[in-house]
């Protein structure tokens, strides 16, 4: 199991760099080490280099670091703004920072504080009520320097905040009592003073401009506090800080505390007892600020996956992302279909080859089988032909056998049709009387019709010929002669078999 990650807080200023290592426990954060580099840094780049050296000397790798910065163009500001989305507030804040601090292209961070609550009129509690908005700003170059010099060192930067906000976080960590409170942090660069009323930051006073390398004396600090107290009283209808939270060097603390108690008639308590120097206190303030849900953080953290996804799925980007997703899904589907086709195609090819080989192997057997089938069909054909001829012969023989006396054939015609045969018989019927002649035809007609294989028997001709047309010596001259023509169909199949 790997060891827990080490955690640090840092304070960067022209007048020195301070590093604090802490551990979290049930009571909050506990300082386990504090180191300082009191050398003066001409630039933020140099200050960061000092910080990096301090971290390296502590063997701090894979640690976490929260930083509070003073000077180097870093600014702090408080505005009252309605509670609105960041997209709306951001340009307003940016313009205000440009106007107030003269920064052309500032890096800006802001976070929301409590709802503004004038002492005379309680807040309505609606979203439209203005809220304190804490703003940090820095030249873009300063933020770029932070990002470039601290990146790739295995240190996770939790937050880079400003000193007043770190002090604010320390005050809130003490319980944020409703009692009017002044917080005084005496840094090397000058005293930072803040006044809190009803638990809310109402006034933050930066150190006065001092000569380079000149540390503010106790009297200068007291003057600064008194001026701030007067302004606080005037601005907030006689409000008087009855409590002072003090962070100062140990050798100055007692003198400052007693002087403050005398001049302000206020109780003085340490702001954060765990750190040995005011710079360490501010560093721990940065740590506390970093652990807020919405810290005032100037550091350009890489966008999280969630935020990148959200940004990608908003507005036109969302439409494009949806289209790209659909195209990707279609691509996956098409790939699956192509894969399925390739698989089926290969399987079909293999099956085709196997079928060909199988068919080739059975070619001799197939030849024998086909010859068997052909032989059987030929035999069947011969049998059918013989049966057809037998039926035709029998039918014609029986037709001829049923010719009654007095009826004779002149011609017999039989032609093949698709269903069998069509036959036509021309002949004469003679008798002593017409009745006998007609009776002969009728008898023959009935005999034909009675046959099962005969159908559609039609008497096409029935007439008495002239005597000149008859040249038959077999009949008597007085006989009645009738010429007739009979046609009928013969079925080709043999129903008797």
């Amino acid at each position: 199991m790997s060891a827990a990650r080490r955690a640090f807080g840092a304070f960067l200023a022209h007048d020195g760099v301070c590093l604090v290592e802490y551990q979290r426990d049930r009571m909050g954060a506990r300082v386990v080490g504090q180191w300082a580099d009191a050398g003066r840094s001409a630039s933020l780049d140099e200050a960061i280099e000092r910080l990096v050296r301090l971290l390296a000397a502590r063997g701090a790798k894979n640690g976490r670091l929260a930083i509070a910065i003073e000077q180097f163009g870093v600014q702090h500001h408080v505005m009252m703004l309605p509670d609105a989305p960041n997209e709306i507030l951001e340009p307003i804040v940016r313009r205000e920072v440009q106007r107030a601090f003269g920064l052309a292209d500032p890096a800006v961070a802001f976070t929301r504080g409590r709802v503004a609550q004038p002492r005379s009129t309680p807040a309505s509690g609606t979203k439209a009520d203005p809220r304190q908005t804490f703003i940090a700003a820095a030249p873009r170059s300063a933020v770029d320097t932070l990002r470039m010099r601290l990146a790739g060192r295995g240190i996770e930067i939790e937050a880079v905040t400003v000193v007043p906000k770190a002090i604010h976080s320390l005050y809130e960590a003490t319980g944020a009592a409703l009692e009017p409170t002044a917080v005084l942090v005496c840094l090397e660069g000058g005293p930072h003073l803040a006044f809190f009323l009803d638990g809310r930051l109402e006034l933050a006073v930066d150190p006065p401009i001092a000569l380079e390398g000149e540390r503010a004396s106790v009297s200068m600090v007291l003057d600064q506090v008194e001026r701030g107290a007067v302004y606080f009283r005037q601005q907030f209808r006689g409000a008087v800080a009855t409590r002072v939270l003090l962070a100062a060097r140990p050798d100055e603390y007692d003198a400052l505390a007693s002087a403050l108690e005398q001049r302000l008639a206020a109780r003085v308590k340490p702001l954060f007892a765990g750190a040995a120097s005011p710079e360490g206190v501010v560093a721990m303030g940065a740590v506390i600020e970093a652990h807020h849900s919405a810290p005032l953080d100037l550091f350009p953290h890489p966008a999280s996956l969630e935020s990148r996804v959200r940004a990608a799925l908003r507005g036109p980007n969302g439409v494009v992302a949806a289209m790209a997703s659909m195209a990707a899904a279609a691509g996956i589907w098409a790939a699956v279909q192509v894969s399925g086709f390739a698989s089926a195609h290969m399987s079909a090819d293999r099956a085709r080859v196997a079928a060909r080989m199988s068919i080739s192997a059975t070619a001799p057997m197939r030849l024998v089988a086909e010859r068997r089938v052909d032989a059987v069909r030929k035999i069947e054909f011969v049998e059918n032909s013989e049966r057809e001829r037998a039926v035709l012969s029998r039918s014609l023989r029986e037709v001829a056998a049923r010719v009654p006396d007095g009826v004779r054939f002149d011609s017999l015609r039989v032609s093949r049709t698709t269903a069998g045969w069509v036959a036509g018989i021309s002949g004469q019927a003679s008798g002593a009387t017409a009745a006998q002649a007609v009776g002969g035809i009728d008898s023959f007609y009935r005999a034909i019709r009675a046959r099962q294989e005969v159908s559609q028997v039609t008497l096409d001709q029935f007439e008495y010929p002239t005597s000149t047309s008859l040249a038959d010596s077999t009949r008597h001259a007085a006989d009645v002669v009738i010429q007739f023509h009979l046609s009928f169909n013969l079925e080709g199949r043999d129903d008797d078999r």
Partner: protein
Amino acid sequence: MTIDRARVSLLMRTYRTQILVGSASAIAFVGFIGLGITARRRATAASVELARLASIRSEVSNFRAAFRASRADEAWLLSDTTAVSTTRDLRVSLAEEVAARAERAGLASVRVRFTQPDSAAEPPRPDLIRSSIAVANYTITVDAAGSLGAVLLLVNQLPSSVAVQRLTATRAKNGAEYHLVLAVLESAGLEQHG
């Protein structure tokens, strides 16, 4: 509705990347869908082909399992001794055979001729696998005299490669005269081997 060209131009410039990516996505979507549909159709056709080939293999397997070699007494079956057709080269021999059978049946004055195809219906043909048989484009006509019984005897004794298409009997002074039109079954194709 008027189109604000400046606004459109501004939108095009503002969302240039989105428009390019969106257009590419749309084209890719259409392309992929087309490709997928084509592949799916071909895969379906390949599956059908696969099923057909499997069926063929199954049939072949069943055939091989069911096939039994010919016994010695079946050898005649595989020979082409059962002639149900003739060839054009043998038509004179066939006419001679018909004339001989007519005379043996007792008909007199037998005359055999090759004539044009008759208008009567064509006779049925055997449906063979290894060769095809067609009705020849000529007929054999038999004219003879004699009894009806002799003609019917001839009809029953005709070779299998001919079939009666028309039979006419006419009374004459010396008895009856007969006119038979015989269709000829001719081999239309040679036996295919392999």
